[in-house]
């Protein structure tokens, strides 16, 4: 009897448990986070690049942006790339050209110079070239002061003196920048037609432009190398000018991201132009015999034309544009003896 009662009680008890289990609600789903706004702060931190825009009662450029993650990236890029490598690139180009000059020497003209000249560049074209060149050099130097002045010049001048130099560089760089753009556009207008690539340019390129070996290469008024330099100046120059205009006028409300991108484009373009312009300066001065006269008086020796631009030489002869040495001296305003005419031709 006792055991039965016990078993009955047990069954009743078990039944109770059973009932209790049926009534009990399912357990609540697990709570995601006890930190309020965790998702919000993850977005704000921008580890995946999204920029969170808020509002601020303080009005101004970008005041609603809480964190600008691009800023630090830009700063590190500037320090680790252009600042670190620009001096190396420029010095490397100078050394390579020096080496080239030592090994290959000045590219001479077969038969030497004759003294008979032909007009290549008008006064306007020469003045335009030199304006652009001098403005470019000024911009390059002031730009380099701002780019690499801190590691290279502060140890030399000290902070106060360098600050004055940097301030003057910044103001004059900003002033001459638009002048560069104007000169560039005028250069585009003056020389574009003569720089259009034509038949014969590819051959010039494939033959190495006559730099390698002593073979004669045909060229027009401008050879393919000159044309490529021209278009590089125009295109990269325009890129630099436009990014420079963006940088120099912050009053249009550009944010920091646009400024950072403009700055990177501006600096990289500038380094490219500086490096290749050193090559151009080499070619126009000591690289080839007879070339420098073109930008000094505007006239070039007919032998030089035959050697480097034979297709244009044909035109000069056809249009009877070759002048004698006496005529050239008269145009320069001196007599033949005192004129700056080189006549190294042996057969005369």
């Amino acid at each position: 009897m006792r055991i039965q009662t016990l078993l009955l009680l047990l069954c009743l008890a078990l039944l109770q448990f059973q009932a209790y289990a049926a009534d009990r609600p399912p357990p609540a789903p697990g709570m995601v986070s006890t930190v309020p706004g965790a998702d919000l702060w993850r977005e704000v931190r921008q580890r995946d690049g999204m920029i969170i825009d808020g509002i601020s009662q303080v009005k101004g450029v970008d005041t609603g942006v809480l964190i600008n993650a691009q800023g630090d990236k830009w700063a590190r890029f500037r320090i680790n790339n252009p600042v670190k490598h620009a001096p190396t690139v420029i010095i490397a180009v100078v050394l390579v050209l020096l080496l080239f000059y030592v090994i290959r020497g000045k590219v001479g003209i077969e038969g030497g110079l004759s003294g008979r000249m032909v007009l290549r560049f008008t006064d306007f074209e020469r003045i335009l070239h030199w304006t652009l060149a001098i403005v470019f050099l000024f911009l390059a130097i002031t730009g380099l002061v701002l780019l690499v002045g801190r590691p290279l010049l502060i140890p030399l001048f000290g902070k106060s003196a360098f600050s004055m130099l940097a301030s003057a560089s910044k103001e004059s760089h900003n002033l001459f920048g638009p002048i560069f753009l104007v000169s560039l556009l005028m250069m585009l207008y003056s020389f574009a037609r003569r720089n259009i690539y034509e038949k014969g340019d590819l051959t010039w390129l494939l033959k190495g432009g006559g730099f390698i070996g002593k073979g004669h290469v045909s060229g027009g008024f401008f050879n393919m190398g000159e044309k490529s330099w021209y278009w590089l100046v125009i295109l990269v120059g325009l890129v630099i000018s436009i990014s420079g205009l963006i940088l120099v006028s912050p009053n249009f409300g550009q944010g920091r991201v646009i400024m950072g991108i403009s700055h990177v484009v501006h600096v990289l373009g500038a380094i490219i132009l500086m490096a290749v312009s050193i090559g151009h300066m080499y070619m126009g001065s000591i690289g080839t015999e007879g070339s420098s006269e073109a930008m000094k008086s505007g006239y070039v020796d007919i032998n030089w034309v035959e050697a480097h631009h034979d297709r244009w030489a044909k035109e000069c002869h056809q249009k009877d544009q070759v002048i004698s040495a006496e005529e050239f001296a008269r145009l320069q305003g001196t007599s033949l003896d005192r004129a700056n005419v080189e006549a190294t031709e042996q057969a005369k």
Partner: protein
Amino acid sequence: MARMKFYCDAERCIECNACVTACKNENDIPWGVNRRRVVTIKDGEQGERSLSVACMHCSDAPCAAVCPVDCFYTTGDGIVLHDKDICIGCGYCFYACPFGAPQFPEEAAFASRGKMDKCTFCAGGPEVDNSSDEFKKYGRNRIAEGKLPLCAEMCSTKALLAGDSDVLSDIYRKRVINRGASAFDWGVSFDKAKLSG
């Protein structure tokens, strides 16, 4: 040594802008320059938060790294200051700063910005402490008087804290412990989907 930092408690900030006003008044800041600002995220929506932002006095400050004339310096307390006499107003520090702390007083032709101005943690600048020169250029030097920045002192809810980072961490940790999981925060006690059903 102490390492001075700001900390803004987003749970307490009510966007009253007292910090902004206090800073502007105490340091006699000209028009257009905003050393401190309050940014509100998700304004009007659930989860709206406000934060008071000025210079964060970073240990590895990008502004100091990018300055072309190296006009920044860090004091022994970890406060990032700069020398206005050396500053050339190029704007690079403003591009680099993640918080937009550097400000410029002018907006003239050819990017003439004037000298950069920013939150100094009420620690003045390289001039002699509490001189009139220092006040004209950099504002009040409260740190030299043994006080803390006025923005944090004036904060109506004590959301903005300024001082030694160890002390700040302590204060905030106590706050977090005392808050626990807020019973009234949506994501914690209620499931959004069930509420509307």
